[in-house]
């Protein structure tokens, strides 16, 4: 009954939004988890969802995680993601100054305005972008886009491009295992034991690969990063100001909000680094401006914080455009979303997006989600002190255990429990070896390999074959 309610259209959409908001809130609170891992953890509830429900769930998750991420960055000085660094720097100082509650509220209210600005930008651009795509979206264009994304990933992320290329190559090789339709072949037929283990023909399943080669190294990295972590502040989070006072406080920083929104909307198209670039660039600009004007406060600058956090949120809808129109993901979490959409046998391209008015509906939901996020999550912020009860280690272990259980669950759903488990166990040592690399690149390669290969083969056949 509940399940059917969750997946029927109108009520289902609303429930997906609420689930996405709660998931996003949790995702931002637990360091190292992030949206990519959270999406995997909640995949079982998305197994029967419609395309739009999956998308609206993701928008809520991505948007609200920025909000809760800035809460723990401000209160505990813990960066959820690289885009939270300005919140750690300024938010922490503001918190120690005793205005942490206003720092959080101004960033949150600013984000709502940011969502409005990016919605206007997206809806104004959509007709032009759609017309362009309809005219020019050939295999040659697709080939160029796919390789641009691949090269961007290898150049922009991680420590060294050589290491990235190696990690990308490993992801591609793992993804090649099994049979392929386009072109039609079985990878390393004489080397891999397909006859003995016929399930290998179907390729390595996504879930165990992700747990072994992305989640495990990520949690390991986070554990090393926070091994000496102690909750710095002895001060408990307290907020006895009225809502009206919070709004008045934010009003003082309205121009920073607008500048941050504009930054976010402009850089949202940068593959895989848009939120980091948006928040850090917006922060640097606002800080420089404050120093020049003599308004920057070294004990915590609210303008810089608000601009950075607003830019973060403003990015989200803009960076969805390439995914919805071209099927090209712009973030790690979007790559995962795309693979889950494929797993659910949905098709995502500009025709589907335009025919079903997905973008317009998502844009409207995006604003509502941001408003609802404040209403739903605001009361929960008061309980943020409860997080001190859990150590980082406990959170890491909790996440890891849930994901291992999910490997069993997803395996059992496909009548392949042991296959899933064995693949995870066999790949874990590789995950350990790769723990100091950017394994998001491996994940992206694993997910995009099939599309990349198709585009490359067709491009070659059209032009040279």
């Amino acid at each position: 009954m509940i399940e059917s309610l969750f997946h029927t259209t109108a009520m289902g959409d609303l429930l997906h939004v609420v689930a996405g908001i709660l998931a996003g809130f949790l995702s931002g609170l637990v360091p190292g988890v992030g949206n990519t891992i959270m999406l995997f953890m909640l995949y079982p509830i998305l197994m029967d969802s419609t395309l739009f429900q999956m998308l609206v769930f993701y928008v809520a998750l991505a948007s609200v995680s920025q909000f809760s991420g800035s809460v723990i960055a401000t209160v505990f000085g813990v960066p959820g993601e690289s885009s939270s660094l300005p919140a750690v720097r300024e938010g922490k100082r503001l918190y120690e100054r005793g205005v942490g509650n206003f720092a959080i509220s101004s960033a949150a209210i600013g984000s709502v305005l940011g969502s409005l600005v990016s919605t206007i930008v997206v809806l104004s651009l959509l007709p032009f972008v759609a017309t362009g795509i309809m005219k020019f979206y050939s295999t040659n264009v697709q080939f160029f886009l796919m390789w641009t994304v691949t090269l961007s990933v290898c150049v922009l992320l991680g420590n060294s491009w050589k290491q990235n290329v190696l990690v990308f190559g490993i992801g591609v090789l793992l993804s090649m295992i099994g049979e392929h339709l386009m072109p039609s072949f079985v990878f390393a037929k004489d080397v891999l034991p397909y006859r003995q283990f016929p399930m290998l023909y179907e390729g390595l399943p996504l879930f165990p690969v992700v747990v072994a080669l992305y989640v495990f190294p990520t949690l390991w990295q986070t554990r090393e990063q926070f091994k000496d972590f102690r909750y710095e502040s002895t001060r408990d989070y307290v907020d006895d100001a009225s809502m009206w006072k919070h709004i008045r406080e934010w009003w003082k920083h309205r121009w920073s909000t607008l500048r941050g929104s504009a930054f976010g909307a402009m850089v949202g198209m940068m593959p895989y680094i848009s939120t980091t670039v948006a928040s850090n660039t917006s922060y640097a600009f606002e800080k420089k401006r404050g120093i020049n004007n003599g308004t920057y406060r070294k004990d915590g600058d609210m303008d810089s914080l608000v601009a950075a956090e607003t830019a973060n949120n403003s990015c989200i809808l803009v960076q969805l455009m390439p995914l919805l129109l071209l099927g090209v993901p712009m973030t790690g979490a979007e790559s995962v979303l795309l693979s889950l959409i494929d797993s659910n046998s949905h098709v995502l391209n500009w025709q589907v997006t335009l025919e079903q008015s997905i973008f317009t509906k998502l844009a409207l939901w995006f604003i509502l989600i941001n408003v609802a996020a404040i209403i739903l999550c605001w009361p929960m912020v008061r309980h943020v002190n409860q997080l001190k009860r859990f150590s980082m280690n406990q959170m890491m272990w909790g996440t890891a255990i849930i994901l291992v259980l999910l490997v069993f669950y997803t395996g059992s759903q496909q009548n392949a429990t042991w296959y899933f488990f064995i693949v995870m166990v066999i790949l874990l040592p590789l995950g350990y070896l790769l723990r100091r690399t950017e394994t998001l690149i491996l994940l992206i390669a694993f997910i995009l390999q099939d599309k990349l290969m198709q585009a490359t083969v067709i491009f070659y056949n059209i032009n040279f074959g």
Partner: protein
Amino acid sequence: MTLIQRLAAIVIALTISAMATTAFAEKKVLDVLVPYSNTGNNWKQAVMFSEALKSKGYDSEVVHTANCFKNNRHIKDSKRPGFYFLAATDLIVNAKNKECMQKVSKKTYLVPHIYRSNAVCVRKSDNIGNNTKAILAWIGSKDRVTMASTHMLPDDFSELGNQFGNTVKKVEYKGSSKAFKGFNAGDTDLLYIGYTNREINAPNLNCFATTDGVNGTAKFSEVFPGWNMSKLVFFNHLIGANMNGKQKKDARNIIIEVLENDPKLSAYYNNAFIPTTAELEKRGLGFDDFWVDVTAWADGSVSDSTMKAWKKGKLK
């Protein structure tokens, strides 16, 4: 009546009533498996079949098994009766290239499904005109001609180049829908595809020739006389899974019924001049013709012993 007798009577009555309700409510199950992409004609037909079956009171799901291996495993793991589409070319490509065997025996074979013409199309926006001669001259004027198609055809179209004295290059796509979209976006010069409503109604498409010359188009055998593909029609069959004899009989009847009477399904086939099961059975086509088609398509490249093994559902 003692209290115990009364209670026993109530329990028996409730049990009988519950059993009757369950039996009454139990729906017939018939899933549609799709071991292909979820964007092309197979997917589209599967969805229409499933909806038509539901409208007749069946419990029917579309299961996207995506490929031959997953399809075989689904059939093995699931207890639900179902069927999937299979053409001779699919069986050959899966068995030869991927070592995946689809069991087509009298036990699994359900009915012939459709007999559809294939088409060769050009884009109207290329301004070649409607005249078939002009189109053929345009093809002949090029040194290299690219033709979009799907990956499931065991032919590389190179033979067609002999007619025009040039090179004809087949460009494979994963599914007819992708080939269709790629062609419309200007990827290739020609499109070789199943002749369906989509192709008939596409505003920028001129499918000037088809296998059987349907809908006023030229016949392949007239415009491409030396081409081994000129006689190829898309002869599809439905293969059953997890069915006993009674279920097979029931499935056959309901399939014929929905193909003829379901508004969406009948429009889909009739508007594209595609004969379906009842008509094909009238023509005497069935199980044996599937294997005749496989032998014809294998074109001597498969040994007799391998063919015998395939008929038994084994690779070699």
